[in-house]
């Protein structure tokens, strides 16, 4: 049983990674979105570095949230349309592991690249130097949280034709604690406070999400994907 469970995790992780590798353009779009929208901010507010520095951490976090949410819709949609999801539901394995594998793949394709390019955005938005490390640490943990929560929303809306907007409505309130502590981690870093505090809370949220979300997703997929 155990070997088959970890098998399910690895198999789905590998397959989803391979799928995004084949369609690199599509897989990279959240990242490009993230970078492109951030250039709109100075255009819309002001190019003044001092003013930008004030809002940089918040903007980077909001953009990361939006990019993750926009891509979360595709998490189960493809599998639902081509029948793979139905095959997964009737396969003799614990549903939680494949689900976790898929979410991990989603994070590796969206959250991790976002974290890696975030210093670039920090530079463009003149984020104070002390903010870089907390920003990357909080984005790494926080986007994983967002992927898990987004997957719950994606599972809830998978059988709807216009799932994208509905997904946003459903998960946005659930995202708020993540953005509060994510933004605070960066702000603490900038202000020279102990930023590991809010980061630890973010980690605790991630731990809880890893434990609970796959269960919820598996249950929801069984309930609503069959129409």
């Amino acid at each position, binding site marked *: 049983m155990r070997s*088959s469970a970890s*098998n*399910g995790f690895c*198999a789905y992780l590998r*397959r989803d990674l*391979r*799928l995004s590798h*084949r*369609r690199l353009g599509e897989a990279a779009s959240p990242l490009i979105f993230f970078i492109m929208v951030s250039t709109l901010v100075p255009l819309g507010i002001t190019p003044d570095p001092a003013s930008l520095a004030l809002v940089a951490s918040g903007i980077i976090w909001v953009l990361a949230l939006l990019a993750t949410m926009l891509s979360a819709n595709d998490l189960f949609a*493809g599998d639902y*349309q*081509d*029948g*793979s999801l*139905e*095959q*997964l*539901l*009737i*396969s*003799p*394995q614990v549903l939680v592991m494949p689900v976790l594998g898929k979410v991990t793949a989603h994070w590796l394709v969206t959250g991790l690249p976002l974290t890696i390019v975030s210093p670039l955005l920090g530079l463009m938005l003149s984020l104070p130097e002390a903010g870089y490390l907390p920003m990357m640490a909080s984005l790494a943990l926080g986007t994983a949280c967002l992927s898990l929560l987004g997957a719950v929303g994606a599972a809830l809306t998978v059988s709807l034709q216009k799932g994208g907007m509905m997904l946003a409505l459903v998960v946005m309130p659930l995202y708020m604690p993540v953005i509060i502590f994510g933004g605070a981690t960066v702000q603490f870093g900038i202000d020279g406070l102990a930023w590991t505090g809010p980061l630890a809370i973010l980690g605790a949220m991630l731990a809880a999400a890893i434990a609970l979300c796959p269960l919820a997703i598996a249950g929801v997929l069984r309930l609503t994907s*069959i129409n």
Partner: protein
Amino acid sequence: MGNPSLIKIENLRFERDDTAVISCDNLYLDAGDILQVEGPNGSGKTTLLRLLTTALQAREGTILYCGKSIAECRFEYLSDILFIGHQSAVKLTLTAEENLDWMASSGIGSSSAVKALESLGLAGYTDIPCYKLSAGQQRRVALARLLISDARIWYLDEPFTAIDRDGVRLLERCMKDHVSSGGAVVVSTHQDLDLQGVRHYPMLGESLLRAYS
């Protein structure tokens, strides 16, 4: 009393939003059987197959697998079935070989993927992405799962869609081989099968049921 049937359905009823979609009784399946589910569009053929594969849950009634309710032996039962539905579960960005390999590693069984594809007439097409294949060829990729699986019970929902005449004959031979080695097939199709000993199971839509009662 001999061995219990491989599959036996007792008083199955399924409703959607309080309107009965199907109710069926007296359906059994033994090793070596080919059961053809027939009926007009909307009579619930797909629903029946999805109930049998546990993708849907019935409101009333039970499905027995070797005499045990499938709720009790879900894992064993699911390891012993293979379902190919309207949607083929073929990933278009992957090659035929990768698709089959993936399906095998997700617990369907294992033997050489390429050999299976070649024997279904896909020689030379195994290493190009599936979106370059025709609809019939994509269907064949999905059907190649039949050859690599060791499941005893096959559930095939309209397997002949988009398949040419040769393909139909090939598939019929697959089914014959499968049942002669102790398997069983439930197939929903409007086509007449060129096979010996096919049993027919007529599905009546709910509207027809009401007209008769």
